[in-house]
């Protein structure tokens, strides 16, 4: 399951958005300045829509940690006089599925509805977007729930390790802030903080709408105009600060009664649109991204049986997202496993990859293309990433040819330049006492 979830993130954020002829993306801007990405498809009587804002946890500060996430969540719990029960029921009554997403960069909402119910579904969806009420009593209740959740997370090795890891990688950069916030900052959060955050970050100019399904282009335009027009009309949002590379190695270990040690190793990685993206991406497939055929899996799991899961990935973000290697292993063998991981990475960087490995990697990444866009829900997510990070529309069509161009020399050179094991941050939770 863990492997699975890692791969989902991986596919969504770092895998190809290669489109082939047939995936015709229509792109325009609404009158209020919202960028729209639309694919018309009448195979199923379904409409899928998402809207995203640069309102992820990186917009928080140490003192306001959690405001971004709570703002998004509270928008769904009261809007234009509809209370939380009425909002949920309005979607449930017509079988619509209302959800959303939240990460370091992005906050957004997602809607899936039958074509026949789209008017009703969008009416409620737009209320949430345009007229959030942020009811005081609901916030008070949710703060208690969130704080309890944070206190529980603080006892579980998986959450402890990922929190320490992000702190070690990003120091005072806002990427170090927890998506869920902190006990203290959530405790002092006020309705006014959420209102201000909403007014600042949920602006029409910063929003990105993605749509796919059973709509004509004219209908899609109307839907997007309505969605965009009611948003705050403030200025576009400034970019996040740059991420500094690690200047020295960090090693943190923490005791925990769990039977396994949770180990994370890495450094800040790359941004969206980085010129080294393709060599690093193809290289990572060989190092620790390609499921059962990666070097890390081969060395640590297949040959020695030390783990159930070991992986590596680059998560390109608006600023340099993490390059992360992760594994869990019985604590008595944690040091051996970590040593093996470090050796595998060192060898990979020093010697690079073989022609045979490169050929296999390309064959998988290029041959796997049709599965990446085989459903409306997958395409919707790709549209939203392309739009949010302003990747060129041709990026999709060119992805496979970019993969095909990568050479063993480029991979070796890119890894030697960009990945610095001497300065890796290493976090072990559940270290042997």
């Amino acid at each position, binding site marked *: 399951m863990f492997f699975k979830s890692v791969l989902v993130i991986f596919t969504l954020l770092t895998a190809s958005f290669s489109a082939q002829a047939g995936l015709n993306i229509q792109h325009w801007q609404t009158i209020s300045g919202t960028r729209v990405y639309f694919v018309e498809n009448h195979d199923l009587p379904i409409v899928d829509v998402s809207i995203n804002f640069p309102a992820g946890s990186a917009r928080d500060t140490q003192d306001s940690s959690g405001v971004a996430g709570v703002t998004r969540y509270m928008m769904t719990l009261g809007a234009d006089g509809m209370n939380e029960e009425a909002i949920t029921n309005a979607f*449930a009554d017509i079988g619509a599925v209302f959800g959303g997403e939240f990460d370091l960069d992005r906050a957004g909402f997602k809607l899936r509805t039958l074509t026949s119910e789209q008017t009703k579904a969008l009416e409620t969806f737009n209320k949430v977007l345009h007229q959030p009420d942020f009811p005081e009593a609901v916030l008070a209740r949710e703060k208690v729930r969130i704080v309890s959740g944070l206190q529980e997370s603080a006892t579980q090795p998986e959450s402890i390790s990922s929190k320490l890891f992000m702190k070690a990688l990003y120091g005072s950069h806002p990427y170090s802030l927890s998506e869920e916030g902190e006990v203290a900052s959530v405790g002092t959060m006020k309705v006014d903080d959420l209102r201000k955050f909403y007014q600042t970050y949920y602006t029409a100019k910063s929003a990105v709408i993605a749509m796919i399904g059973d709509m004509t282009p004219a209908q899609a335009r109307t839907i997007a105009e309505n969605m965009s027009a009611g948003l705050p009309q403030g200025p576009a949002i400034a970019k996040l600060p740059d991420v500094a590379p690690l200047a020295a190695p960090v090693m943190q270990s923490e005791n925990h009664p769990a039977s396994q040690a949770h180990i994370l190793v890495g450094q800040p990685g790359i941004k969206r649109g980085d010129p080294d993206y393709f060599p690093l991406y193809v290289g990572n497939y060989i190092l620790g991204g390609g499921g059962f055929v990666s070097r890390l899996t081969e060395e640590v799991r297949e040959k020695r049986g030390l783990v159930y899961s070991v992986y590596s990935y680059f998560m390109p973000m608006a600023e340099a997202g993490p390059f992360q290697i992760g594994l869990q292993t019985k604590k008595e063998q944690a040091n051996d496993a970590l040593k093996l991981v470090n050796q595998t990475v060192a060898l990979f960087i020093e010697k690079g990859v073989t022609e045979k490995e490169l050929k296999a990697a390309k064959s998988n990444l290029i041959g796997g293309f049709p599965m990446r866009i085989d459903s409306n829900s997958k395409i919707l997510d790709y549209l939203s990433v392309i739009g949010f990070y302003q990747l060129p529309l041709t990026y999709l069509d060119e992805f496979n040819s970019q993969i095909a161009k990568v050479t063993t020399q480029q991979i070796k050179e890119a890894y030697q330049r960009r990945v610095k094991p001497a300065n890796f941050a290493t976090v072990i939770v559940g270290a042997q006492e």
Partner: protein
Amino acid sequence: MHRYLLICLAFVPLISQAEIQEFKLNNGMKVIVQEDHRAPVVVSQVWYRAGALDEVNGKTGVAHVLEHMMFKGTKKVPAGQFSRMIAAAGGKENAFTGMDYTCYYQQLEKSNLPLSMRLEADRMQHLQITDEEFAKEIKVVMEERRWRTEDKPQSKVNEQFQAITFRAHPYGRPVVGHMNDLENMTAEDAREWYRNWYTPNNATLVVVGDVNTKEVLALAKQYFGPIKARALPPRKPQVEPAQLGVRRAVVKAPGKLPYLAMGFHAPVLAFKSTTTEQAWEPYALEVLAGVLSGNDSARLNQKLVRETSLALDVGAGYDTTSRGQHSLFELVGTPSEGKTVAELEAALLAQIELIKTSGVTQKELDRVKAAVIAADVYQRDSVFYQAMQLGQLETMGYPWGLIKEYPEKLKMVTSEQIQAVAKKYLNQDNMTVVTLDPQPIDPNAKPQGKPHVH
């Protein structure tokens, strides 16, 4: 990526109008094909009617261990090559084991379907389980158990819950196996399992995607057709004796929040159509689960989380189908700070009492039905999900035609029927309760080393 467990059997089988065709090869292997031409892809799954349900004491977890060993090579396709060949074709593959079945699948560009069939047919007949590979892989499975169960407090509660709910029925055992059984498992145990259950007459091939049904059948005949059937071990009926009073247990594990899992023995749909209560009771229980926790405004969350703040989380769940012909109606939740698991238990039971005395509203019924109608359309967006439904039903022993009647049957459920099943099954003598008593982690543990500062 490979080889994770599917412990949860729950889903509502509902499906599109697309035509589904079923065939039986001469060796008894079943083939189910559904054409879906929206994208040039295919999902191919081989399901074996062998899961934790078929294990015996002392060898728990062997179904799942064998699933891991299925990637360890044959004479023609040495260890690791299966995954490499699928990867080279651009494919994704995985496998999962549940109580009722073990399933292996590949997702590929459509022209690669023959590769997947060739490889699956090969490992159905020629798997080599060497002592050396077994010794390594059993360690992987033990790490999986540590990660999945040992170090996860709620998983431990669920394991205890299953164990005391089912005293005789194999559903009481963990799919991943007890640690002691894994420690003492041998390569021969895995070989025995393979010999017993991995035969074409115990398997179903499900193919969904941009394919031609006739061509799929021809390929299936070519690759799987020549495999000889073997007699299967007899399957004894396993019936859980009636519960004669409430059962309770407490689990202590590191953590901060308590947790409550409650369950009631409940029926599942019969394999063959019947005119007894079994024909409608499972549908009524399914709708009841939807009324209680089908969405955030459903009764449990609305009353216990939103209105009274008694709980941080609550939920209800029920499966209408299983091969083992037993199901549970479950209620779970986490009490808010300052509230106890006992208070939450009482509040959940009060909600059940309310159903018994007052039934449910037409609006609530309509909402569950709206969800059913919409889900029936939405699932057509995923070829994988459609294949999953077909394979699960077939392997459990149900005709896949059940998929077609399912929405209609759910729509016919009345408030009176819901009251009737609540009264009949959701009562204390039929109830099991397991709670998590969270323990502080070592208060002396301090971080070692200095955090990096930019």
